[in-house]
């Protein structure tokens, strides 16, 4: 168990270093001088020189990288070039908004996804199963931003039930969370079904039935816990993808979360902000996946007692 955790932590540290490196490269392999690109034609050479100095891009690359990593560790990545606000405080503000939205849609996706997947597995081969899986594949194939617009048209414009944009009242969360969560709910439902079907073929499920366990408990208690590992793996990746995917939804509902920050920074080519958003979204993603991997130990006693990988 300890070995497993240690191994996993080492790997994470390595990946985190890799991420800083990749993000750093990202900015520096932009064809042409990044500052020039950022300022486009607005700048005269003098100004470019000045901005370079401000951002520290006139220093040699290795030194720049070390400064960047130092900044990343100290949570200080300089100021946005355009708004002059510290990058970290902008990120934090955006992150809180997005995290709330993502958390709600995650809950939505997990509840709907797991219960529909279980239901489909229980009713395997029956019309309920085919129906649910058809809906799931439809949900997986529809772009979230399009679902968002359709929801806006139906519930905001035609029925006039729910607000069209913003996040200033609790009701506002409904449409964005559904739009963001649908795709994930659909894929959770699919993997839950597959994993459950795999598990219910196992001998211990037959043992449970032979003991006289209620059919519902066979599924909930005996099968689900065993089916959970692939589901949890998916959940981890998805929570991260949801943070990133929320930028599409944020655009539709005019929400100023971290996604909007990322898109704006890239369209404005605001160098420090681009670095900051990309880096920290990736870091959050990696940390979530780490937590997921460690949570396997809670599910699977083989990992807990040090046998499995």
């Amino acid at each position, binding site marked *: 168990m300890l070995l497993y955790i240690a191994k996993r932590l080492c790997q994470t540290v390595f990946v985190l270093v890799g991420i800083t490196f990749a993000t750093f490269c990202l900015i520096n392999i932009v064809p042409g001088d990044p500052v020039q690109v950022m300022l486009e034609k607005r700048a005269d050479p003098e100004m470019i020189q000045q901005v370079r100095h401000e951002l520290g891009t006139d220093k040699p690359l290795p030194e720049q990288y070390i400064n960047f990593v130092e900044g990343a560790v100290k949570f200080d990545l300089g100021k946005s070039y355009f708004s002059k606000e510290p990058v970290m405080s902008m990120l934090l503000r955006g992150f809180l908004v997005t995290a709330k939205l993502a958390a709600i849609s995650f809950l939505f996706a997990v509840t709907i996804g797991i219960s529909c997947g279980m239901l489909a597995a229980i009713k395997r*081969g029956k019309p309920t199963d085919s129906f649910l899986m058809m809906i799931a594949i439809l949900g997986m194939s529809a772009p979230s931003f399009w679902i968002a617009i359709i929801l806006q048209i139906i519930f905001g414009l035609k029925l006039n039930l729910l607000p069209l944009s913003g996040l200033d009242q609790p009701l506002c969360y409904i449409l964005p969370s559904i739009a963001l969560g649908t795709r994930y709910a659909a894929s959770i439902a699919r993997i839950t079904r597959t994993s459950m079907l795999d598990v219910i073929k*196992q*001998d*211990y499920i*037959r*043992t*449970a*039935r*032979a*003991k*006289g*366990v*209620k*059919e519902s408990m066979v599924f909930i208690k*005996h099968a689900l*816990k*065993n089916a959970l590992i692939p589901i949890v793996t998916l959940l981890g990746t998805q929570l991260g993808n949801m943070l990133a995917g929320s930028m599409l939804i944020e655009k539709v509902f005019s929400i100023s979360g971290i996604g909007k920050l990322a898109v704006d920074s890239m369209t404005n080519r605001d160098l420090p902000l681009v670095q900051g958003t990309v880096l920290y979204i990736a870091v959050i993603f990696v940390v979530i996946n780490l937590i997921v991997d460690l949570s396997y130990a809670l*599910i*699977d*006693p*083989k990992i807990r*007692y040090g*046998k499995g990988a």
Partner: protein
Amino acid sequence: MIRDNLLEVNHLKTYFYTDEGVVKSVDDVSFSVQPSRTLGIVGESGCGKSITLLSIMRLIENPPGKIVAGEILYNGENLLKKNKEEMRQIRGNNIAMIFQEPMTSLNPVYTIGEQILESISIHRPELDKGEARERALAMLKMVNIPMPEKRFNEYPHQLSGGMRQRVMIAIALSCEPDLLLCDEPTTALDVTVQAQILELINDLKKKARAAIIMVTHDLGVISEVADDVMVMYAGKVVEFATVDQIFAQPMHPYTCGLINCIPSLDKEVERLSTIPGMVPSFNEMPKGCAFAPRCSRATQRCKENMPELIDIGERKVRCFLYEGKDTE
């Protein structure tokens, strides 16, 4: 001699409907078991032994499997007419089953203790937590698991195959069933453990007056525990007799073959002959007797017609050789 049947199976047919065709895993099988007696079911791999037991438990996976005909009378009541809830109350409580695969039959994510407790709490809801735990521990002791308190909190992967099988037995016995179905309970175990487990099962028969069905392809096991023996071949009963009769005077050529097959230390090695050929697969089942292609005494008639199961006194045999002797 008339005994009260605890279980009576009549003309049971369990078929599997697969893409390649219908597999008649159990085809018109009838037998009965009485309290304090053990029925042994023998036969080669794939002849439908496990499916027979699973049919009694009503645990046939549907689809593709289905019990298409017959009746299973338990204490005179037809199990096939029971609804799901009634069946659930019977499973684990009145009828318990020990499965063939000890390595995979325990749920890997729950402790041994939790898994024994579960069946006690389902069928003995009147027991409080402490009493149930007492009982579960007592079961572990009964099946000779060393350090039961410690094992109680361990997970299946921490136990050896033999121990897991004993845990399975503890689970099966935890609610004192009066019918115990054992599907090759000792195949996966080494000889000493095997002997201990058979003893355990024999004890149960004597003390609790339970009826036992013991499936195995090991005739050594049969000779130790069984009172009656049923020999199956390709889904059908080919011979039924008491254990003494079977070993003293096997009738069906297949049974003779099987008995010649037992590797026994005190007999000559030459006797260790095997039956040539293999069990036919379901889609190349011969028209007549399923054993005919492998039978040294088969005639043209055997190849074309399926013999009936004929009564010869207390015994039954499915072979043309004994036709006309049923009146004796």
